[in-house]
């Protein structure tokens, strides 16, 4: 049952460095990182404020302003603070999934639970960091016992489980997309693998967006500063007294 279809790119070893096998996940992740860093460095070497800007700068401006507006809609006024983190999350996952659907031979590193778990751990660590930097240690810790101290274990379990859900959601979506294409290649190889690859392109984009938006929602819920009437807690229409 094992060797028929590869589950994740973890199982494909590309080369070895001194006896340590370097698998496809690491190679493709580093290739993506180099591509994005070098590409954006080439574009932002000559930034201008003129009316006529290069197409690369135009592209980057569209992307950056779109991400910033989305963050501002969710997190309030301080979008610039969270943009590096959330923007990087979105861009890495989106580029990885898009390349997996378009570039032949490229396997999405997000189809491996290691990558998605690492990204989810980044979010798990970033939420307290942003929360403490915005509200102070006491303010951040107080929200765990906010309605009643009995809720403390549920809050902690909720935080851990939503991080796990982030990792498994992204992994499951991307892994299922690549696996469906692999299986269809064996069954009906002419037309349907292409259709499924297009579907994988769409779900890859949607999952990247959802990962970034959920990360921003978690950060916003940890950093919300109440002034006057407390805002609704994560959408639940609880009747707040004052």
């Amino acid at each position, binding site marked *: 049952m094992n060797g028929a279809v590869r*589950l994740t790119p973890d199982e494909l070893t590309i080369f070895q460095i001194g006896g340590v096998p370097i698998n496809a996940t690491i190679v493709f992740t580093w290739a993506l990182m180099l591509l994005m860093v070098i590409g954006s460095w080439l574009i932002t070497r000559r930034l201008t404020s003129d009316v006529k800007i290069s197409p690369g700068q135009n592209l980057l401006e569209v992307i950056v302003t779109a991400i910033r507006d989305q963050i501002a809609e969710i997190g309030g006024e301080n979008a610039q603070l969270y943009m590096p983190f959330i923007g990087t999350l979105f861009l890495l996952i989106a580029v990885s999934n898009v390349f997996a659907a378009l570039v032949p031979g490229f396997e999405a590193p997000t189809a491996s639970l290691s990558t998605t778990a690492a990204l989810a751990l980044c979010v798990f660590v970033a939420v307290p960091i942003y929360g403490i930097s915005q509200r102070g240690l006491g303010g951040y810790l107080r929200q765990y016992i906010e309605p009643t101290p009995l809720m403390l274990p549920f809050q902690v379990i909720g935080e851990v489980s939503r991080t796990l859900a982030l990792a498994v959601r992204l992994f499951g979506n991307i892994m299922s997309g690549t696996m469906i294409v692999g299986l269809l290649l064996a069954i009906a190889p002419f037309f349907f693998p292409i259709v499924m690859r297009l579907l994988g392109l769409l779900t890859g984009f*949607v999952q990247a967006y*959802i990962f970034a938006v959920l990360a921003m929602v978690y950060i916003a819920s940890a950093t919300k500063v109440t002034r006057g009437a407390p805002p609704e807690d994560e959408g639940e229409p609880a009747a707040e007294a004052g």
Partner: protein
Amino acid sequence: MTGLELIAVASIVTGGITIMVGSIGPALAEGRAVAEALSAIAQQPDESGTITRTLFVGLAMVESTAIYCFVVSMIVIFANPFWTYFVEQAAGQ
């Protein structure tokens, strides 16, 4: 039935039933969510951006359960530790 055959039958049946039952609930829930979102957009077309975004986020959360079931089913079929253990044992004999 030997242990090997029993593991194979149990894995195949479990994989099928897992994804079968696990996709019913999320599908129904997502259909309901989309229906409510459509009626909300019909009532307030100006807010369609916010509604659509919230809809997608909610759909992703609901989809998670189906994805969990799918991952379990894939593991049981393709990365089954019990199967590999028994195969190694049978190959070693």
